[in-house]
């Protein structure tokens, strides 16, 4: 190491490796037989996915009545889970697009997995709007396609329609961005493998990448363009999702604070999920040299900041409910904190506002056990946040005659567990068949804080 480098700059890849070694560190796992741990993890995930799938099949075959909803509470776990998963899907694009534009080089080690997580989470999220519909087989009517229904088209005033556009755009751009980023690494896999079948498959997947200057140039430009496209989406998706609530007249939903509040919450939960996954993955796949403690430290800081934004939003909501003088709004918030669902509210507060405060301490940020535990706590808290917003607002709205209570049925519980099955199944497959870390990008930042070229 040279003394020219400032002490403040620390290496993004601490240990010295050759480029070949970097490739081997990351890509060898694709060539090896799956480990026992992987097999067990994959089997459990696939089992949960299967149970979840059967549950959904039963529900679609029988009716929404298999859920615990009623005439007062038309949405509960379904949309809670939807928003939960969409929120988790936020970190990927933020890391890959926004951090790319802001030239945050440390992102390279985690962006691939984070983006994959985004796509998987959005896939999980997408299930809920689909199956929550009474007649999901007709849900294609939400797309504004030319049809023979006469004057009947979609309702552009409905936030649910905006949702359709927001989510599908987000999924498309994220998918393209992720896949484009994969191209050089897929070519590396193709070039390294000895199996002819894999050569063909990865050859096709890498779109004939030849590593020429032109190719790299196009690729760099495309990444920037896509990042530019994806950046507003980071804000728009959860803004639109929040409008499902904000544009309604339900006390507790009808509030202008929702877009920034939801976006912050989404980043908060997304980073927590990235932490949960990466802490395990780096350990299992021996990627400590790439996903370093510095990464974890940075992500903890993001969680701390967004957690406080969320906390501020909770406080602001309460203040505005009082300040507005609207008796329904006031009741709604008092009911959240002291009504029959008080436990959900206070779980949310403890998980989302209190627990991230540990991250003020560097010691805590560097303690993997604490970080791992808190990353899960934050996600539980964020799930409760959506539950609190959706269910406790609906269960007691304007006319007390209709007030009611909600509790989930086994169908809802297993559907939710099933989406975790889907998420982890996809993630397990992902780390077996695709480069889990952006090899080419890591190589491009390897020299950072090294003065040896």
């Amino acid at each position, binding site marked *: 190491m040279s003394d020219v480098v400032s002490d403040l700059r620390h290496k993004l890849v601490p240990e010295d490796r050759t480029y070949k070694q970097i490739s081997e560190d990351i890509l060898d796992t694709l060539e090896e037989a799956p480990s026992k741990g992987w097999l067990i993890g994959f089997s459990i995930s696939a089992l949960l996915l299967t149970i979840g799938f059967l549950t959904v099949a039963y529900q679609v075959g*029988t*009716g*929404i*009545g298999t859920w*615990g*909803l*009623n*005439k*007062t509470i*038309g*949405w509960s776990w379904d949309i809670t889970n939807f928003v939960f998963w969409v929120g988790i899907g936020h970190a990927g694009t933020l890391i890959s697009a926004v951090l790319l534009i802001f030239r945050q080089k440390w992102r390279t080690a985690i962006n691939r997995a984070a983006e994959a997580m985004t796509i998987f989470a959005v896939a999980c999220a997408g299930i809920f*709007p689909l199956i*929550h*519909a*009474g*007649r*999901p087989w*007709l*849900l294609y*009517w*939400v797309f504004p396609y030319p049809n023979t*229904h006469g004057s*009947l*088209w*979609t*309702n552009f*005033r*409905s*936030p*649910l*329609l905006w949702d*359709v556009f927001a989510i599908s755009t987000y999924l498309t751009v994220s998918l393209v961005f992720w896949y484009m980023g994969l191209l050089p690494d897929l070519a590396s896999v193709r070039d390294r493998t000895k199996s002819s079948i894999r050569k063909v498959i990865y050859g096709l997947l890498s779109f004939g990448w030849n590593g020429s200057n032109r190719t790299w140039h196009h690729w760099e430009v495309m990444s920037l363009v896509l990042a530019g496209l994806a950046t507003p989406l980071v804000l728009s998706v959860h803004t639109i999702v929040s409008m*499902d609530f904000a*544009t*309604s*007249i*339900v006390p507790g939903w009808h509030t202008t604070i929702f877009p920034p509040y939801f976006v912050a919450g989404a980043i908060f939960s997304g980073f927590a999920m990235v932490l949960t996954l990466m802490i395990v993955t780096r350990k299992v796949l021996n990627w400590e040299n790439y996903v370093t403690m510095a990464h974890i430290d940075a992500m903890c800081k993001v969680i701390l900041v967004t957690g406080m934004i969320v906390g501020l939003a909770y406080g602001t909501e309460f203040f505005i409910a009082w300040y507005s003088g609207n*008796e*329904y709004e006031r*009741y709604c918030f008092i009911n959240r904190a002291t009504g029959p669902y008080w436990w959900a509210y206070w779980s949310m507060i403890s998980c989302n506002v209190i627990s991230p405060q540990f991250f003020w301490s560097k010691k805590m940020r560097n303690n993997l056990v604490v970080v791992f535990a808190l990353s899960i706590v934050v996600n539980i808290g964020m799930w409760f946040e959506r539950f609190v917003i959706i269910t406790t607002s*609906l269960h*007691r*709205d*304007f*006319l*007390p*005659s*209709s*007030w*009611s*209570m909600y509790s989930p049925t086994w169908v809802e519980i297993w559907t939710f567990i099933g989406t975790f099955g889907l998420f982890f199944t996809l993630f397990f497959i992902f780390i077996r068949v695709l480069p889990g870390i952006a090899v080419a990008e890591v190589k491009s930042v390897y020299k950072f804080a090294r003065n040896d070229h």
Partner: protein
Amino acid sequence: MSNLEKESCGSGCGCKPSTPDYWQDVENKVVSKAELMEFPEGEFDNFSVRKTRRNFLKIMGYSVSALPLTGCIKIPVRKALPYTYKQNTIIPGVANWYASAFNGLPVLLKTREGRPIKVEGNEKSSFGQGGANAQAQASVLSLYDTNRLREPSIEGSEVSWEQFDDSLRKLLSEAKGRKVLVTKSLRSPSEISLVKELSNKMGLEHIAFDAVSSTGEASANSETHGVYTLSEFDFEQADVVVSFGNDFLGAHRSDVANAKQFSKRRNPKHSRGMNKHIQVESNMSLTGSNADHRFTRSEQDQRDILLSLAAEFGDYSHMPKANNKEVVAKIIKELKLSRGNALVLSGSNDKNVQILINQINHSLGNYGKTIFVSEKSYEKLSNDQEVEQLIADMNGSRVGAVFFAGVDPVYALGESERLKSALSKVRVRVAMVESASSTSNTANFIAPANHTYESWSDEMVSSTELAMVQPAIQPLFGTRMWTETLMSLGGIEGSFYDYMKNYWGNRIDWNQTLHDGVTQIKSEKDSVSYKLGSINSVAKKVKNYQEGSGLQIIGFKNYAIGDGAMANNPWLQELPDPITKATWDNHALISPAYAKSEGLSTGDIVEVTSGKTKLKLPVIVQPGVAQNAVAIALGYGHSVGGKVSRKLGANAFSLVKFVNGSYQYTASFGSLKKVGTGAKIARTQTHQYMEGRDIVRETTFDAYKKNPKAGNDKVFKLANVDIYPAHKKDGHQWAMAINMSSCTGCSACIVSCNAENNVPVVGKTEIARKRDMHWLRLDRYYKGDDNEPEVVHQPMLCQHCENAPCENVCPVLATVHSSDGINQQIYNRCVGTRYCANNCPYKVRRFNWFNYDRGEEVERMVLNPDISQRTRGIMEKCSFCIQRIQDGKLKAKRERRELQDGDIKVACQQSCPSNAIVFGDMMNPETEISKQLADERKYVVLEELNVQPRVNYLTKIRNK
């Protein structure tokens, strides 16, 4: 083949649909190919020969040559007239209306393609004035009850009617002892005449038995006026109504007529002002919930108050107890102010109590003005003593034959072993009933009876008005009118129709009466003179009434199920009780104070013990129940009966006692013990208080007189902040106004809406999960002290908002605004996101959580063919009866005239016994609705949301 199949086109032509249903609704449009290809099981079993070429040819040859032979089979000729040959009376798609009557209420039956599908009040009747209660409206569903008995049977084996009559005649000729016919109280002149004729021919005695008896009142009238009959009332004339536990607007009797009269005086603009209604009761009744002053008092306290009144207005001296002094003073003050225009009532079945009531009415000069006791030659009323005598005679083997026509005394005497063992000593036991019951299970001859709507009869609905009962459909099953069964046994030739027509002869204009459904027999109600002198001895008996010790058990009829005769009707079971909002069950209703002292809460399960009787019931803590009492609805707990009524609740008739010559419903005492918790109570409303919100606006009559806008002076300045352009308002614009002062909360409108709009029944479990499907509900809120609560009822239905929050949020435009201002739900466009329901501030949208069971084929005959059946996953809600609007508009168009106010009546409005609902075109300033919208009392619920509802409410006014 059952008669059902023969009749299923409904035209009476004997045709049978030639093809199976290819499609039932939009969802299941096409019968799958696989289904069509499937061979019925066993069809080809005989061809299990080896599949060789020779065998194939053999079978082939046989089949081809056998084919022509089928032409020789004689296929029975069925008379079938397709609609291409037009029949005079039936136009597909156009309803025919027939006048009839149900349980003393003149009704009109709407039939479509020969099937009765809806019951409405008969507006030509001066008695019912077009109103209909829940039971009358639900009766059309009982017509199609698959639990009805279908064929006559002897000792459990089905026989033909000829065999039945022969065997029965033979046995009857051998039977020794009394031959007794037991009916419910009869007010049918022709049936009574027939029974008299039979008593001459067969020695048949006639007694009447009512599950819930009014012997006390009739006996009192017998003593005070010399006539064994029930009093009639004129609530419109009464300035003050004082009722001791008499549920005259609810389950007591002639609720529709009472409500029609009563509601006129709830209008503050009535020329004589509002009436004043004081209710003293031990259980919160529907009537009590509407009172201007309601006092929760135990039965003992009620007697104490009554004695004080008797002392004030008669030759008796009594000092009220300290806690009753105020009530007594209040009542006396009000009564004295309106002598001759007051009305005092009691719901008690104790003769002595009713005598005191009569005496008070007499001394106030109310007879002939607000209350009438008239001679009625056509009436056979129940008399509990006769019933007890019959049981005694049966036990003493002095009865040879007993006929039960439409009554179920075994059930209604609490499944009493005493009656069952008595019956076993009777040789001939004939049950002429519609469905199997506890009584018919003890009979050896079962003669299934027609439903009312398959029968001919007549009924004096009041002392002045005769109503006709005529069939609207041929008998669905192999049943027979009970009158015809008796005629056949008694050897009277012809049908009962002939008998009835003959009976009336020229006394009425037969055709006109049949057409109108009603005719006036007498021009005015009259009252015979009061005879009783001193009440001293009666009052002493009331004073010395032997109370039991412990918790007083109050058996009461609730509004929906009544005496339990219609307990197998799912519409009624699912109708929320107007007070408790509970469905599908009866409960132990206890006061909040008692619940607190005993540590009980709603949902606990208790065992109510009285003597040997034990009833296990879930608790509902009910404001307005007397402290040391438990109230239990009668009519539940059928051990025999249809699939609907069985296993629901407990039979509270087992707590009824025979005291002072009549069955008494509040005479049992006992104890209550908690035996469990967590009962699933299927209630449609679980939060009972308004939380101080501006939902029901209320004022007093005095305040109203000073300022008609009293209680309605909240003004919201709503800026025009709409994002979207307003809807154009031209042509007809429909609106509704609901008068909160008139509405009694009786819930008849809910059944009307169910029947009109094919609203599915979802069952107890689903209601317990708060998934009731009613398009119209009645919100009931308590106010004030839990022991003496004030109650308000508020009908809540789709408010058809101008700025409808539901319309904005639907992604597929499945709920849209019509040009005439209706918020429309487009079922086949709905994908079921439920966003609209979440965003509805009134929570009136109903989601089809499942494909709801519409019952068997015969039960589906009740469905309104104008309304599609919604499949699962679809949102539905009140449509302002759009089919009726369309029908009214088309009718006016056909007749080339402008649409008139009143041409269109929505279902809830039509049935309303208190005329609380007004519907019409608000663009026409002449309409009733326009006048109501201009009323100072008009307001809309949640006005501050600026959703601009089309349903308006008029402030509730209490006269206190």
